[in-house]
């Protein structure tokens, strides 16, 4: 992976360093390498030295826009590296009045999709030591030799069915866009769940949600969760208990999903950040599918000017309950 990557990281660094060092932005939100080579974590760059750590590789899954919520309190102008999902998340924040457009400079990065370490392990049949990428193929080096795999087979779940890998909003696009991707399986699991009987479905979610630790990582990673005080933490009224028992877990996840109706940008960060692998994206996608079916296709975060279906009234809105 080395060469192509060095080049592109340099290109990104070059683009942002002028702005950061020239004082056009006070902070750059990007990625740096984590403990392991297969981890890229958020980088909060304020200096040239910080920029040295900048990474742009196949593990930059973290959605950076969400960090603006905090960082804009302390910085006047922030630069953010945005993939397709980061850009849609930015539009989400923009539409929710959480940020002002002029406070942020967006550096657009058309995204090839990020890789899933677990899939690498699976393919390699052991702990991989490093990878190299070439023309849509990934060569995984393990102690005993090398394994080769299709890059598409190693993608994170959230990237597999990503329809808009190019940023929908940016000030500067750093690489050439790849265009809208055709996705066929985005609602496959939702459809399977819809096929189930109510009891089966309840059983499915009861099992999945029973693992929830109520750590709220999903909420913290989510660009639509921008409440100052989440309903789970409110005391008066106390909407729900804190204990992690099935009924309370249901309440939390269903209410959270409903709060994202017509707002979720389908970045999948909730599911990716979940430490116990609850398929949270399916809850969100069920609501995305419902919104599409009821109000016509709507992709949250693509166009902040487009009015969200649940905040507008059209005379032909479905209202089955009031029909004759």
């Amino acid at each position: 992976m080395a060469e192509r990557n060095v080049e592109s990281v340099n290109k990104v660094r070059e683009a942002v360093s002028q702005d950061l060092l020239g004082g056009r932005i006070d902070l750059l939100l990007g990625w740096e390498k984590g403990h392991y080579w297969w981890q890229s974590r958020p980088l909060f760059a304020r200096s040239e030295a910080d920029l040295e750590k900048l990474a742009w590789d196949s593990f930059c899954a973290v959605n950076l826009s969400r960090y603006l919520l905090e960082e804009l309190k302390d910085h006047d102008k922030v630069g953010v590296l945005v993939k397709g999902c980061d850009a849609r998340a930015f539009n989400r924040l923009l539409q929710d009045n959480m940020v002002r457009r002029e406070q942020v400079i967006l550096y657009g990065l058309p995204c090839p999709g990020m890789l899933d370490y677990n899939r690498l392990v699976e393919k390699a049949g052991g702990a991989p030591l490093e990878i190299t990428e070439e023309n849509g193929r990934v060569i995984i080096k393990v102690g005993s030799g090398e394994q080769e795999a299709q890059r598409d087979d190693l993608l994170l779940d959230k990237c597999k069915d990503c329809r808009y890998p190019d940023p929908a909003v940016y000030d500067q696009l750093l690489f050439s866009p790849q265009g809208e991707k055709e996705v066929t399986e985005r609602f496959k699991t939702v459809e399977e769940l819809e096929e189930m009987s109510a009891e089966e479905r309840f059983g499915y979610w009861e099992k999945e949600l029973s693992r929830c630790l109520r750590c709220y990582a999903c909420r913290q990673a989510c660009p639509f969760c921008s409440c100052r005080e989440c309903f789970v933490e409110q005391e008066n009224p106390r909407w729900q208990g804190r204990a992690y028992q099935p009924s309370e877990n249901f309440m939390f996840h269903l209410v959270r999903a409903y709060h994202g109706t017509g707002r979720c940008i389908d970045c999948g960060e909730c599911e990716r950040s979940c430490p116990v692998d609850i398929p949270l994206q399916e809850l969100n996608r069920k609501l995305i599918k419902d919104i599409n079916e009821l109000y016509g296709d709507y992709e949250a975060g693509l166009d902040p000017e487009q009015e969200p279906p649940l905040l507008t009234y059209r005379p032909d809105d479905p209202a089955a309950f009031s029909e004759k």
Partner: protein
Amino acid sequence: MPRTGVFICHCGTNIAGTVDIDKTVEASRNFPGVVHADEYRYLCSEMGQDIITKAIKENDLDRVVVGTCSPRMHENTFRKAAAEAGLNPYLLEVANIREHCSWVHKDMEEATPKAIALLRAAAAKAALNEALEAPRLDVEKRALVIGGGIAGIQAALDIAEAGYEVDIVEKDPSIGGRMAQLEKTFPTLDCSACILTPKMVEAAQHPNINLLTYSEVDEVKGFVGQFDVKIRQKARYVDPVKCTGCGICWEKCPSKAPSEFEMGLSKRKSIYVPFAQAVPMVPVIDRDSCLYFRKGRCQICEKECPPQAIDYEQQDEIIERRYGAIVVATGFDQLDPTIYGEYGYGQHPDILTGLEFERIFNASGPTGGKVVKLSDGKPPKKVVFIQCIGSRDKARGMNYCSKICCMYTAKQAILLKEKVPDAKSYVFYIDVRTGGKGYEEFQRRAAEEHDVAYMRGQVGKIFPEDDHLVVRGIDSLTNRNIEIKADMVVLAAATVARGDAPELGRLVGINSDSYHFFNEAHPKLKPVETHTAGIFIAGACQAPKDIPETVSQASAAAVKAIGLLSKEKLQGEACTAEVIQSDCSGCLNCEAICPYTAITPVEIEERYKDGVLKRTVAEVNPALCQGCGSCAVTCRSGSINLKGFSNDQIMAEVDAICLQR
């Protein structure tokens, strides 16, 4: 801890018949905060109210729960009683143990615990009730009447006579509406125009009435006492100030189009007044058929107009005015019977609807008042009237009875006999419905003295043969097939809501039934009110109606409007929304959802680290807020509370019901 008093009403046997009152009173004594509990046969009576007022004073109560009928019925009664004892009326809470309990249950064993649970919930909520003050609001002393038919004219005249300004908005070029199209009126047979036109003229001349014809309502905002309305006055292309109504323009105009007023049976010019007695007598140019607008040449009207009133450059004008009250009187349409293929409507000139036949009688109508067939100009000798075309028809039409058809059919049959003495009428009916003063007598007269044969039955097919129409039907009383060789067929097509009624309802903010007739607030007790305060309805836009009913309803609506306009101040809504700004993230979804534009963004300052952070949050204008609660349910973080129905109050109710089972 609050000092709550609980009062339970027997409502005769309405509640006491199904709910064990003694048990309920006993249980109430054990609710948290309850220091007094009592019952009475009729709490809403004066005696009952006294019991409440006295108990408040004697027991120093600061919260009151009444277990009675729906708050829609008597909440105000009890609030007043509480206020009498010096308690803020919003500290009283109603538990609906009649509609929500005794009326829907039969078993006392089950109904009693439910009544107790409802009371427990009300007591839990009451404990959290806060004293509220209703804002006092101004009333714009002007009414808007939408629709210039007989309903609108009558309502406007009554309001104007009471001394208030009224604007009538009429979408057609003249006021007059459906009644202007009628020949004579049942059951007295006086000429419709003769009794209508004086009212039209009176409306036009009344100093308090402002006619806005050829105009439509574009937008209604605001609320009772202060409706802000945008009215689009469509371009007439004629200057109404200069125009003298001399008629030269429409005499000279070379192009024609079907006349809407004549139901398309004859043509009118492209510059026209809809009918001879039009008010105002100012023509309009119909752009779609005008040669000048279509092809850029002609301009004869402009050249010929003596006062030079023609103005092709005229634009639609938007008038913005504030009104205290609105009367909606937009009338009805006639169902298009082409959906009933068997009747052949539209395929033969002698198959008419009731309203079309009405025009045939009229001296200024398409035949100049001669009752003749449109096919050959000869008088019809045999006319078949068919009732209930689209009315009382679950399968293909409307479920309801159009109410006026039986009577106007009898009228038309009588008129026919007068004009064509050797004519014979046949009426196919399901039932003849003649409720109303003098109506039955009138219909009998038609049957007995005017040679009208009433046949209970249905027509299955109508088709032309030689120079007549063959009507095949069945007489359901004798079960015999009937075949009539008729010269003319008149279809009593159903009275239906105006095609644009749903849109207008949405615009004005009133709802309609499944047929798109506007809904009254209560079918018996609030027949002219709507669920939106300050908006009243009159005439056939509410349901099919004849003229006397329409006029009485219009006067009723006018009285309601006058009552409103005569108030110095209106009591606004006390239960308004409020934003908990420290929790508000400022997403302003509430602003998007608010139907009353009562929510606006506001910038606040908050302490942050060593400095101050400015941020935007939502704010509710209590004068504009109508307490609908849409914002409260839209707010994800629960940062909006509807006063009187706050989140913690609702949760307290839920807990009181669920946690004690």
